């Protein structure tokens, strides 16, 4: 089990948002960062992970079932699978879509809350659906933290606003301040 965990969700506008946030994390970042970006079932192959790797000092990997969860690494949910956190690491499932999405942000966030409770930092970035709002509420109920991208700076403010409506947000930040904030959170513990 890791000491702290960042789970992140995004859809529309996500690629640029992720590049910016991940780009601000130093190679020494101690926690795992687990990301669900909404993807179509056909979006297979490594291109998303490779693209994000170019922007990121931490190793970026598309998840395989039962991958261990290790600090200082970035994990991307693969297309057409849900991504879940377990005590032993990462797991995949092929359950039905949630808000038409697989991978779903709610599924990731909720599973993180169950296992890691107060050690979770959930980040909701730009996106066009309400996926992630219920999961964010679950993270808060488990004692975790919720960081939301300022809707005014988001390509689509729908997802951040839905999270803000569903849960008590700890920080609303413009995109270029989120990475630094995650660094501060990890250094406090």
């Amino acid at each position, binding site marked *: 089990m890791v000491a702290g965990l960042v789970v992140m969700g995004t859809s529309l506008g996500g690629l640029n948002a992720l590049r910016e946030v991940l780009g601000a994390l130093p190679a020494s970042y101690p926690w795992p960062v687990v990301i669900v970006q909404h993807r179509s079932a056909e979006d297979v192959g490594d291109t998303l992970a490779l693209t994000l790797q170019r922007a990121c000092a931490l190793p970026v990997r598309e998840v395989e*079932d*039962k991958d261990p969860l290790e600090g200082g690494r970035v994990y991307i949910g*693969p297309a057409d699978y849900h991504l879940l956190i377990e005590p032993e690491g990462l797991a995949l499932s092929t359950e039905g879509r949630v808000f038409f999405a697989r991978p779903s942000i709610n599924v990731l966030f909720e599973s993180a809350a169950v296992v890691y409770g107060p050690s979770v930092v959930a980040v909701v970035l730009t996106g066009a659906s309400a996926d992630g709002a219920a999961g964010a509420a679950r993270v808060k109920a488990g004692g975790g933290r919720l960081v939301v991208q300022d809707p005014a700076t988001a390509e689509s403010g729908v997802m951040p606003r839905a999270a803000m409506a569903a849960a008590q947000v700890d920080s609303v930040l413009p995109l270029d301040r989120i990475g630094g904030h995650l660094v501060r959170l990890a250094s406090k513990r």
Partner: protein
Amino acid sequence: MTSDTAGSDLEALELELLTEGIYRHYGLDFRHYAVASLRRRVWGRVQAEKLTTITGLLERVLHDREAMERLLTHLSINVTAMFRDPTFYRAFREKVVPTLRSHPFIRIWHVGCSTGEEVYSMAILLEEAGLYERARLYATDMNETVLQQARKGIFAMNVMDEYARNYTLAGGERSLSDYYLTRYDYAMFHQSLRRNIVFAHHNLATDGSFNEFNVIVCRNVMIYFDRTLQGAVHRLFYSSLRRFGVLALGRKESLRGTPHEHDYEEIDPIEKLFRRQA
């Protein structure tokens, strides 16, 4: 410890009691299912039964066989479609079929076949490769309800368009509709395609091996098992495969950390096709 961490611990306990109770009373073993996905599926059932706790579900399934049936179905339903992951079938066609040609007799085991879409897809692929006559497909699942469905070879017409697209992307040489008759809102696969398929009950958690196979297809089934059960199943597969037999996993599954990790050669590292070494 916040009240919700205690809540999570209690929930974990209830889940354990549920699987233990089911095992002791029904002999169905979910004790080594992957906990995150099991938890979600169980909660789905708690809500569907209009209950509020996992322990409430335990009470109901212990005293009501039909409730247990519903839970079993819910735990074993797998998202499936004909020629799902078309690139898998392409890779199978290109890399595995040529090596099957040298065998006078081909046995293929479809593990966790659910309602049969994957098996019928393989049957079509083999037919187009001219190998169907000498093939026997064994399709197993732990759920008798889905097996009954699979045996019929009947699918709703409204999904056949999606299936037809998959079929073409998978390298299908004809038209998917060549293989079925249309009856009202349903497509029924020809008897000639079903002739060499046997659908049988088999439970990976409790049953042993029953044959030696040239190919074992087990895609996105073991993602629902924990590492312990996954390891036991891999041992079963290894002993059920002929030398140089092929194991096919789901696109995002891995042999890493499994008991026979080093006993296979990668035929296709992306489509997760592996060949058992001598």
